[in-house]
């Protein structure tokens, strides 16, 4: 793999704070490569993030970066996008950040179909606080706040977004960074609310407690479980059990909110 563009990194801020084996670095690198591939002007790109491990990525990226409050990244981003519709916004959130405390903002951003690119780094756990279960922790998995395994069912984040009106939904993972990069590029080029769920290993706060092995084991498992949307079309339910769908699950054309608003007041945003 080629070197990352140094221009887009705040190299002085490295090394990052993430644990050994964490997938956040891989996802962040995929995002940087994706932004480079889009050809967006650096000054037009804004990285918005919430609170949690993955949200710290904003501090390492050399753009205008906005590290917000827990769960509210999409709302800050909505205000910024409406004020400056020409900007290209990437919103990095963790699974707890996006789907628990930020759940309301997530569905309403999808409903508006506002042109934001939501990158949800899903490691199935609250990592920064030491391993509590999130709405994306699979049922039965252990966490510090579910020592006997959680009884709660997990959201299917992409289906949730689709139901709420999102027009682009894709899933990738840290074990297949090239594909993840391509998915982010497609999300960025899509006009409307785009959701990219990036599965990422947390060997320290999630894997260890659930006996999932090392970071390498977790990545291998992630890769083995992943099945592309195209391939899944020819598979039956039994074959798809315990597998995760990868790739673009949906991409729909619908009016984008910021553009529609500015059109309604007689302004062209290009």
């Amino acid at each position, binding site marked *: 793999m080629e070197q990352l563009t140094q221009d887009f990194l705040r190299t002085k801020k490295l090394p990052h704070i993430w644990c050994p084996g964490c997938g956040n670095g891989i996802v962040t690198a995929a995002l940087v490569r994706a932004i480079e591939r889009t050809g967006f002007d650096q000054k037009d790109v804004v990285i*918005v993030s919430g609170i949690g491990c993955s949200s710290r990525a904003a501090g390492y990226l050399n753009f205008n*970066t906005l590290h917000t409050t827990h769960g509210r990244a999409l709302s800050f981003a909505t205000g*910024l996008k409406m004020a400056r519709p020409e900007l290209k916004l990437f919103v990095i959130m963790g699974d707890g950040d996006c789907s628990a405390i930020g759940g309301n*903002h997530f569905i309403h951003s999808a409903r508006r179909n506002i042109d934001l690119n939501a990158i949800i780094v899903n490691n199935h756990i609250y990592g920064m606080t030491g391993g509590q279960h999130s709405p994306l922790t699979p049922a039965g998995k252990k966490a510090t706040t579910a020592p006997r395994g959680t009884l709660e069912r997990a959201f299917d984040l992409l289906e949730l977004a689709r139901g709420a009106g999102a027009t682009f939904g894709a899933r990738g993972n840290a074990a297949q960074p090239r594909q993840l990069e391509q998915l982010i590029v497609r999300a960025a080029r899509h006009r409307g609310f785009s959701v990219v769920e990036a599965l990422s290993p947390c060997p320290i706060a999630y894997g260890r407690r659930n006996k999932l092995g090392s970071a390498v084991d977790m990545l291998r498992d992630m890769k083995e479980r992943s099945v592309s949307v195209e391939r899944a079309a020819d598979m039956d339910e039994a074959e798809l059990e315990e597998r995760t769908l990868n790739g673009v699950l949906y991409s729909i054309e619908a009016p984008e909110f910021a553009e529609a608003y500015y059109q309604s007041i007689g302004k062209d945003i290009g």
Partner: protein
Amino acid sequence: MPEAKPVLMQGNEACAVGAINAGVRFYAGYPITPSTEVAEQMAAMLPEIGGVFIQMEDEIASMAAVIGASIGGMRTLTATSGPGFSLKQENLGYAIMAEIPCVVINVQRMGPSTGVPTAPAQGDVMQARWGTHGDHPIIVFSPASVYESYYLTIAAVNLSQKLRQPVIVLLDEVIGHMREKVLIPEGKLMVEKTSDKQVPHDWKPYDDKGLTPLVPFGFGHYYHVTGLFHDQYGFPTGDPMQVERALDRIHEKLVKYRDEIILTNYIGHKEPRVAIVTYGCTVRSARAVVKKAYWQNRLPVGLLSLQTIWPFPEKEIEALAKQADVIIVPEMNMGQLVGEVERFARGEAKVVPLNRYDGEMINPDQISEEVGRWL
């Protein structure tokens, strides 16, 4: 001077019109009684002038959207009432910490909790001061008329921009819903649009040397904005020296510009024996008392009305306490600002609370009775 046109309007409308005349072009909000007219007015006016109105999914999102738009370079406003003001507090703290300008209108209603949504009260005085966590500076204006609502909202927008500091305009249901004449100068108010123009080469978002203008996102100045304690470039720090310096920084700008922030007005006897200190709609009843006691009967009575309640006008109270024997503090709550008055009277005058908390205004008779007791 341009011609001034008299307009009849509500306090809530006056806030909306004032904000627009001060250059506000972005409003995000959530419906709540008794502040909703601010949103309705903005929804009608902003699209006409190329601005953005957005009704968000909740109060928290409204506050966040306003901050986001400010970072984009727009002048912004949101409005709410008690329960919504509670929900806005975390992001309000963020704006204070990250030094992002914005104005929040809080049209107070009777609380706690859902309370009496349509009854007036002045119960959010302490929440406005200490609602968000941590040691933080805040500016709070409290208009006593529709006219003051208009001009204090303009002042709030301008101060907020200048100091990169959120400002709260604390109305109450009486001022928010009453209709009065406001003189609005004709012609266009010029507002300088925020851009990257005249940004010095060595610009830092949180310069140790002091206040620097906010350079909006999208102009090639790649800085970081966070609610974490940060260095002068905006990057997170846990270094005790930098943490202390950063906290001093956000407080010191309010100390430095104190004279522009603190607005008070005194009427009545030059050497009052009994003085009234109040704010918001209660000023109206107190003014009626002073009219009768001083202007008609030449009794040694005066009224210090506070347009700014936070930062607290300490010097003005200190000076008043040296003159008056008694300071009466009428408030439509169980006694919130009276504690501050007592603190800065420093034992020089007796401070007497006068409270009402049944959802009704304090009337002039109640104040007259208390004044008479001490004359």
